[in-house]
């Protein structure tokens, strides 16, 4: 039971962080379908950082992992920003390209590094078991992960930034009616860049949380199994509001956690449902949730439409 709570919380943290990222980006008017790829890149940065940091100071490790993964995620979303904000490219196409590219880039980089270290090692796996211990505080049998705290803080900060600061309100204006925002002197391009970069940072952190959730090594060929898209479903279910996103993430996190721990419950194990069914759960739930909530959902009005100063 404690294990279930633990996994629910950690997966919910992943979803919260990434969904908040998507939330910032969409409020500024850019649909970031590349979050999946951003997660992979953040995970790559974080994993390499953890590998390098093995055995060093506990506090510094945690801070550095967060910083590095956020920065890699941000750097990666620059590609999205350039294409979609400055060159007005199709946001769906570019986001998809980023997703595919991220897995390829991460695999190539990790393989190249592994081969460089040891010519016989052609795997795309990074091991970070030692540094991962810094992330965890044991309370009884419950393993508290610092990232759970990070996620909660992120929700609070996102709420304050979006609704209580000038920046947040301006950002949201750019996603609702960019022409009007521009007419009162807000630089729409700048705001959209801010939204996209924030989504990169949060997505990147989400990525590293995802890979450290259960295991202590990661095979980069596998990517993050649609988690970036689950996060988008969480965002839609949470109707683009930070607090609702946090709550929605708990629900999705619970179903994702089930697939990790169902064998620990004797009555669930006795049902002899194949593990594939549990693996399918989060995706099925999100389809159902989307089917019932999308009809009346209020997405930012101008999202997905490239802003062109000259057009009316």
């Amino acid at each position, binding site marked *: 039971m404690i294990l279930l709570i633990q996994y629910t919380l950690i997966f919910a943290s992943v979803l919260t962080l990434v969904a908040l990222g998507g939330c910032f980006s969409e409020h500024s008017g850019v649909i970031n*379908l590349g979050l999946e790829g951003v997660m992979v890149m953040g995970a790559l940065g974080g994993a390499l950082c953890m590998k390098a940091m093995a055995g060093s100071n506990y506090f510094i490790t945690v801070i550095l992992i967060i910083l590095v993964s956020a920065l890699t995620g941000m750097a990666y979303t620059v*590609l999205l920003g350039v*294409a*979609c904000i400055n*060159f*007005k*490219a*199709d946001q*769906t*196409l*570019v986001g*998809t*390209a*980023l997703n*595919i*590219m991220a*897995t*390829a*880039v991460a*695999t*190539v980089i990790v*393989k*190249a590094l592994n*081969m460089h270290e040891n*010519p016989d090692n*052609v795997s*795309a796996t990074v091991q970070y078991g030692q540094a991962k211990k810094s992330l965890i505080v044991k309370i009884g049998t419950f393993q508290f992960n610092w990232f759970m705290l990070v996620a909660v803080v992120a929700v609070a900060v996102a709420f304050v930034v979006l609704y209580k600061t000038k920046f947040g309100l301006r950002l949201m204006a750019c996603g609702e009616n960019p022409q009007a925002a521009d007419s009162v002197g807000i630089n729409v391009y700048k705001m959209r860049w801010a939204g996209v970069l924030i989504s990169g940072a949060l997505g990147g952190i989400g990525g590293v949380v995802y890979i450290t959730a259960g295991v202590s090594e990661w095979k980069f*060929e*596998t*990517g993050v*199994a*649609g988690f970036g*898209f*689950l996060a*988008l*479903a969480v965002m*839609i279910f949470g109707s683009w509001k930070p607090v609702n996103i946090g709550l929605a993430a708990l629900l999705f996190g619970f179903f994702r956690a089930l697939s990790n721990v169902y064998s620990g419950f004797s009555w669930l194990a006795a049902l002899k449902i*194949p593990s*594939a*069914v549990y*693996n*399918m759960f989060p*995706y*099925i739930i*999100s*389809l159902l949730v*989307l*089917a*019932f909530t*999308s*009809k009346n*959902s209020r997405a930012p009005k101008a999202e997905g439409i490239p802003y062109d100063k000259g057009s009316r």
Partner: protein
Amino acid sequence: MKEKKSFLMIPLVQSVLAALLCIVLGLLIGYLVLLAINPAGAGEGIVAIIKNFWNYPSKPAQMKYLGNTLVKTAPLLMCALSINFCYKTGLFNIGAAGQYVVGAGACLYAALKFNMPWFACILMALIVGGIWGFAVGMLKAYANVNEVISGIMLNWIGLYLVNMLLNGVKESTSPYTEQIGSVNKGALIPSAGLDKMFTNNKYVTIAIPLAIIIAVVIWVVLNKTKFGYEIRATGFNKEAARYAGMNEKRNIILTLVIGGALAGLGAAFLYLSGYEQWSVTQSSVPSMGFNGIAATFLGGLDPIGTIFSSFFIQHITSGGSYLDKAVYPSQIADLITSIIIYLCGFVLFFKLTLTGMLNRRRDKSGKSGR
């Protein structure tokens, strides 16, 4: 001079130009990555990727491996057509990957479990793929669910379902499904003598010409029929199409059903050739559907252009395996493909700039001539 200007204004010329530019840039970046990993063999490496089957010295071997590339081009072309067709309605069918997966599951199960003949297996793949597309269409038309998100969800659901289903027909000692050739020969798509042309490559079947014929049919449907016109009208302006009395919801669902069927068919074209077996332990969605996105956009969103771009994408994907594996990861080919997709995002901007530039120049020369 005047003729040259109008030549660059032709949409087809612009599309080809843009595609070539994407390819050259993609390969260039690929080369730079090779250089970064190990400068010594980078030149050879990129040449090996581009050469693919030409890496073999003898003519018969070349033909044989060209055959292998073609065997995988057929399913890629079908996935690309699926995405292309849906994109005309303004729908981004990223679910093609999942429709391909369930198509593979359906045809393999029909072949291995029920010993169905090949055409029945193909039909199964087509129907099940269509159902998967139908789900996306229904969700989009009636519940306003973003087709990209529902598509991705269905990709994963499909993958786990198919793994579970095919677990029943796998070899006892490996995670792969049984060989169709040894269990049910009748399920293999006939090659009708085509194998002889490719040095007895038994995987070369009528699936390849069929895929090309289907591409032509799709072109005709899109450009020469009322249904195709409605689809394109819906893609241009949904509200206008509805106002003109077109049934927008029906068209959305129908396009996705057809798109799903095409992707499912693609899977049948590959798996019923016996070229590949399905691994029931695979934990990621096969990249065929995603590479289809590259082929679609590289082909300038035109079914005929897609035939060529599919071949090219498959050519370099297969070419990746000729890299020296002790030095370079073969995923460089995937990297090049994904860079090409990314660059395709700039194509519209490229065309607009080119047209704008040419117009300005024409205006200028027109004024000075007067």
